[in-house]
């Protein structure tokens, strides 16, 4: 497992780097204030804003580990949000809405899983179908508007806080922990990695490959639904046109930054979450830099390029030394 720690260290050092950048942009970024029982501060913002991508990454990592990919998560977010909003606006209680949204997520995941497993479609096209149609379904529900709702219970999914932490953060972390346990405390992780690395060998060893495959897509759908709920609650409305738009790329990027190969095999929930946080860190930094928005994409590109260099096996040792110094600065 020492390999895992090495990986974790390089990700953590990246995160430290990003946080440092934030501190440079907005001094006092790291300080935490407790205002009426709720924590405020840059770190919290990153966790809070990063929650949806964290959730998507948690669902995406096992999918990618099976040599698959799920392009539909953004659309599923939109559907889930729309369903939730429509449900409360139809006068149902918010728990009903939440359940309805999660149910939709499951259904979407099941559809993907069936296309991949039974129809043997290539994951990228199988999920592309839902990526395109899904957003349409969401828009059909909202009729292209932003479906605003006033139900504070549902809005609470984003605005409420527990133990000083915003609910989205807790949801994301909980999801990560549950998923982590699900794959590591059971044999699921082993099976997923076996199926992803060598499907034929896994089958001959008696691994229930079809079940595993469907399972990971269903889980991904569920996570996407959660993310969709948070996104909708955040703006107290379901924006079918924009909710989760292109977020699938962020999720995949997070997982890959987390060290999972798109060719399947070894994966780590924890590292994928780190990947998501690194991404959000960059975003926040760029948004607050005060630089003209025309530069956003260029900055993003430069930062990721930096990440790639940092991670490339070529300059690992040098990095290790550098980080040691940086982390000291960062905390000082």
């Amino acid at each position: 497992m020492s390999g895992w720690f090495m990986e974790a260290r390089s990700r953590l050092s990246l995160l430290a780097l990003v946080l440092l950048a934030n501190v440079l942009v907005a001094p006092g970024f790291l300080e935490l204030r407790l205002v009426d029982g709720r924590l405020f501060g840059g770190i919290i913002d990153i966790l809070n804003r990063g929650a949806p991508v964290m959730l998507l990454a948690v669902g995406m990592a096992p999918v990618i580990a099976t040599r698959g990919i799920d392009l539909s998560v953004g659309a599923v977010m939109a559907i889930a949000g729309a369903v939730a909003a429509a449900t409360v606006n139809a006068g149902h209680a918010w728990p009903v809405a939440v359940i309805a949204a999660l149910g939709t997520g499951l259904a979407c995941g099941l559809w993907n899983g069936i296309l991949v497993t039974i129809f043997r479609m290539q994951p990228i096209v199988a999920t592309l179908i839902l990526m395109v149609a899904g957003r349409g379904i969401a828009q059909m529900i909202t009729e292209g508007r932003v479906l605003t709702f006033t139900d504070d219970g549902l809005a609470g999914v984003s605005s409420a806080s527990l133990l000083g932490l915003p609910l989205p953060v807790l949801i994301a972390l909980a999801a990560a922990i549950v998923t982590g346990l699900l794959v590591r405390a059971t044999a699921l992780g082993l099976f997923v990695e076996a199926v992803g690395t060598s499907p034929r060998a896994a089958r001959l060893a008696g691994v229930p490959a079809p079940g595993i495959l469907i399972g990971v897509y269903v889980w991904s759908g569920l996570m996407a639904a959660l993310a969709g709920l948070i996104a909708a609650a955040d703006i107290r409305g379901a924006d079918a046109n924009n909710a989760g738009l292109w977020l699938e790329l962020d999720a995949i990027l997070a997982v890959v930054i987390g060290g999972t190969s798109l060719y399947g095999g070894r994966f780590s929930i924890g590292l994928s979450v780190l990947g998501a946080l690194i991404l959000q860190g960059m975003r926040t930094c760029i948004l607050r830099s005060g630089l003209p928005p025309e530069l956003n994409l260029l900055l993003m590109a430069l930062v990721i390029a930096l990440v790639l260099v940092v991670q490339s096996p070529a300059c690992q040792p040098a990095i290790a030394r550098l980080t040691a110094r940086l982390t000291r600065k960062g905390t000082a």
Partner: protein
Amino acid sequence: MADTAATLLSARGLTRTYPGVRALDGVDLTLRAGEIHALLGENGAGKSTLINLLTGAQPVEAGSIHLDGREVRPRSPADAAANGIVAVYQEITLLPNLSVAENIYLGREPTRFGLVDRARMRREAAVLLSRFGLSIDPAQPLSAFSTAVQQLIAIARAVDMSARVLILDEPTASLDSAEVAVLFRLMRELAASGMAVLFVTHFLDQVYEVTHRITVLRGGKLVGERKTAELPRMDLVAMMLGKLPSGDSHLQRHAAREPGAAFVTVKGLGKRHLVAPFSAEVRQGEVLGVAGLLGSGRTETALLLFGAERADAGEIIVDGAAVTLRGPRDAIRLGFGFCPEDRKLDGIVPDLSIRENIVLALQARLGWVRRLPLARQRELADTYIKLLNIRTPDAEKPIQLLSGGNQQKALLARWLATKPRLLILDEPTRGIDVGAHAEIILLLEKLRDEGMALYVISSEVEEVAAYADRVMVMRERRQAGMLTGGDVTPSAIIDAIVTPVDMPPPGRAA
């Protein structure tokens, strides 16, 4: 001849370290023009590593390589090939998605007006393959063929490319006697033409049949170089193992014991395009050997028996009850285990550790909820690593980093861990060194005596004759006989295998 010949290639003090292992430690090797040179050693002794260094597949850590007295530093296999040094690696490193012809000529395709001349490529490939007694369509994708054929294709490519030195890492592992004979004839021709051939194998008979000199490695160190003619078998084995072998008495035939109850009975099991219906019976505490030439369909019988291929005819009866196998899981539930022939594709899960590979089948049978505690997994892994003495620093090493033979052992361990009632083994001793070979056969006999039913496919007739109670003979993808009792002798088996049949073989797909 060989002793007077000039030194062609000489390697001095070659060294290579991997995390946790010094795979190669200051090894010298001298190849002379016109000589066939055996490179021997236990599994994990460092043979393949040495070859990787010679062809530039792995960087040289310390030491030097001289060709014709001039130092060469191969940076890549292409580089080495340019110097006339070509190798056939232990795992078949061909590309399944390309056609046979493309595989043979990749990197040196014949062209016309700058375009690849496919017609010519096929023609020449066909000619080349016919020299190996292969009459297959070179336009077919490589994946359509068995390990054996792919092995032959790899050799054909190398033979066609090599100018000075040809290196063969366990080429005969998956070949049968006919192919081996062809290969040896070619090796002799090449040697006679002034090339040097480096030949890795675990079959001592072949060593004595074809080689002039022997270099022995043990634990990554050079034990010594001898002339084959001047080195008795016993001494050779002692050099390799570092001790005298635990008497290879296993090749004496055992007294026939009274067989146990019938465990699995197969009635007219078959599948179109794959193998004609066959019938057999495996009793508890007995070994059913399966003999046949390449492509005779032995593997296919195993695939059907294990449910990996769905039969379209016949039935399987377990403990007297007819069963249908919808897939390997059904078979495993019945207590079957299957050690496949194609280690790389159907066997190991490369990224996963040795431990995970060993517990995989057992865990799959337990289901995903009841995960084996890590401690238990470690314990299992260590037990089998010891039992089969798999050469590795620890059980957490990715299995793909193990030497070929040790991977094979790990796979055997995977199934032993499930305590199967019927164990199907396709070429279980392929690529296993002499010492381990004896150990594994003793192990099989032990398992049998404990009442396990064994279905063993093997190309090594003496061996089959030694431990099998009965032998099913396959020919042209159909059952060609069942030898029992006193008939189970090498000669009888060989007769049964080779007697030509008049009926045409059933059509093959693809």
